[in-house]
């Protein structure tokens, strides 16, 4: 039973990883690529690690897999956020088809207030 649950989690995680990397190649902009790739690959890798835990149970490899899943889940959004802000501050333009730029609005409002 736990073998089946683990195998289903592994396959779904594999599909999330594949779709995230297709989004990394196909999307037009650094910010679009960042959000597609980071969300999909974080969820997919966490699903693979939880699937490994479901297969092996409470063992050395299973405990390490849960530890690694918690670590990836905590650190990947932080890295993506730092990278997006660094890209914006380095002066990389948004895609031409973008409709809203909240960061520019907020910085402009702060400049007018101060």
């Amino acid at each position, binding site marked *: 039973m736990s073998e089946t649950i683990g195998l289903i989690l592994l396959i779904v995680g594999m599909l999330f*990883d594949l779709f995230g990397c297709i989004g990394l*190649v196909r999307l037009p902009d650094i910010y679009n690529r960042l959000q597609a790739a980071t969300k999909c*690959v974080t969820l997919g890798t966490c699903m693979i690690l939880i699937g490994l835990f479901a297969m092996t149970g409470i063992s050395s490899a299973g405990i390490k897999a849960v530890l690694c899943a918690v670590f990836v889940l905590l*650190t*990947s959004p932080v*890295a993506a956020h730092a*990278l997006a802000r660094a*890209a914006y501050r*380095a002066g990389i333009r948004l895609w031409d088809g973008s409709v809203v730029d909240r960061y520019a609005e907020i910085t402009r409002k702060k400049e007018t207030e101060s």
Partner: protein
Amino acid sequence: MSQAFWTWPSIIMIVLLFSGFLCLYRIGKGPTAPDRTVAIDILGTLMVGFCAILTWTTGKDFYMNIGITWALLSFIGTIALAKYLEGRDFDE
């Protein structure tokens, strides 16, 4: 070849390696430096999953140590590269 090749572990490994090659395409082509940094970060996260599959197929748990170390070093490297990219055009 007496053993079957198209089993689930080998299929998952092949798909993860294909995703890794898509990341390598983005690293090679990416027009700006943050594109390449994103692709390197994603490649590190993919390889953590690959280490998990290796742990499952071989039954040896030290591959999971490699995965934890890879995730940690990928995070530190991404933060360092983000700081470097931010400081390049720092007018304030």
